């Protein structure tokens, strides 16, 4: 690994994943890193951001000056409304999810597995947890994208053959963005579509708990 190689920043990860959103998609962004994605929508597209608290059609994160105590996203952070925004109550926000209207839910995770399982609600050794809307989103949205750091703070892989932590949902993840690249769960391995500049496939493999198979058209992550 080159000494200069730097992992992708959180903003770069969010921007790269936001580039996957197609014009007109209805997208839910989970608490944590995913809520950054609404700051990076490509200019040629309109994305309808949906949040669990009933905001349908929010936009980028608000500045301190723009923030109001009335409009927050699913991470409870102030956001701006789009001109086409509408508001529903919490139960209807989840009706939209179960009804199948979400094109994608972008969620944070503690672990992502090659078989499409993921775990994001309870860490090892704890009794309580934070499910939030993740279980509803995971089974309601057409696709689930994950946005997470490739390794834990003490360097252990978060991308695994199978999850060790209690699952949020089984077999639903279609795309995984980490600070080392863009991956697709492929059953027993992760297909590496794009790699962080300065890293080799071997570098990524060493930091991954499942086989990493580079795509034939593997490229560097660019935004």
């Amino acid at each position, binding site marked *: 690994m080159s000494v200069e190689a730097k992992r992708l920043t959180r903003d770069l990860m969010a921007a790269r994943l936001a580039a996957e959103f197609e014009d007109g998609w209805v997208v839910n962004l989970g*608490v*944590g890193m995913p809520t950054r994605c609404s*700051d990076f929508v490509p200019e040629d597209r309109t994305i309808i951001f949906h*949040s*669990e*608290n*009933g*905001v349908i059609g929010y936009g*980028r*994160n*608000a*500045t*301190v000056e723009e*923030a*109001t*105590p*009335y*409009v*927050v996203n699913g*991470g*409870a*952070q*102030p956001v701006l*409304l789009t001109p086409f925004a509408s*508001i*529903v*109550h*919490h*139960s209807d*926000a*989840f009706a939209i*999810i*179960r009804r199948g209207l979400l094109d994608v839910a972008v969620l944070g995770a503690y672990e992502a597995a090659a078989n499409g399982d993921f775990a994001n*609600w*309870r*860490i090892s050794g*704890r*009794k*309580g*947890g*934070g*499910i*939030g*809307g*993740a*279980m*509803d*989103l*995971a*089974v*309601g949205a057409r696709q689930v994208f994950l946005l997470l750091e490739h390794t834990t703070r003490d360097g252990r892989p978060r991308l695994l053959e199978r999850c060790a932590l*209690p*699952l*949020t*949902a*089984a077999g639903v993840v279609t795309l995984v963005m980490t600070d080392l690249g863009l991956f697709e769960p492929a059953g027993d391995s992760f297909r590496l579509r794009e790699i962080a500049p300065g890293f080799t496939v071997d570098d990524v493999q060493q930091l991954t708990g499942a086989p990493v198979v580079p795509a034939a058209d593997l490229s560097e992550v660019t935004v």
Partner: protein
Amino acid sequence: MESKVVASFEEAVAGVEDGSSILVAGFGEPGSPHNLVAALYEQGATELTLIANGAGMTRDDGVITTGNLVEEKRVRRVVLAFTASTHPSRRTPLEELNEAGEIEAQITPQGTLAERIRAGGAGIPAFFTPAGVGTEVAEGKEHREFGGRTYVLEEAIVADYALIRCWKADTFGNLVFRRSQRNFNPIMAMAADCTLVEAEEVVEVGELDPDLIHTPGIFVQRVVSIPEAGGILQAPPLAMFSGRPRS
């Protein structure tokens, strides 16, 4: 028609008995009934059941939360979508008591929580949902297949009280919420025997357009005007950014 407006938050929560079940609305800052929660904290009721999105956090900006009730061991049971902080490094009083076995903490997916409350307010005892199937939260519950997909049976929630925050109320208790302040508020208002409301403004009956009312006054028992009762209109705004305002 007799007005439902009472003069103070203390008066609104005066009858809350020990052992009550209480729905607490709000998602983040918007729609959080800070003044009613603070009044409940002062009132002293104990052995409570709290149903809310989350209830673990205490704050250091002077705002009293349900976390303070938990910390003082006045809550014996919670039903929440978050029973621990989303930041693994932060520990809440709820987590400590949960791990010590001093509180019963039921975690439920947020959409299931919302629908359980909606069902309670709609007179539906239970419903099937796909959320949580195959995970710990569905263990021990009835499962059934519909159209080739497996669903889990979840039961409705009703409660003795709901603590509600709205933008405008009239003296009959008709309520209007502003933007994402709505969240759990309308469904919780319908699911409680006694719904207590703190309103940013109270107007006379006839001033709200009937077509634009979110919660009909027949679901509301008491209303407090936040400005007239000297309450907090909003918590310090920077608290909303979790330390990361956009520049």
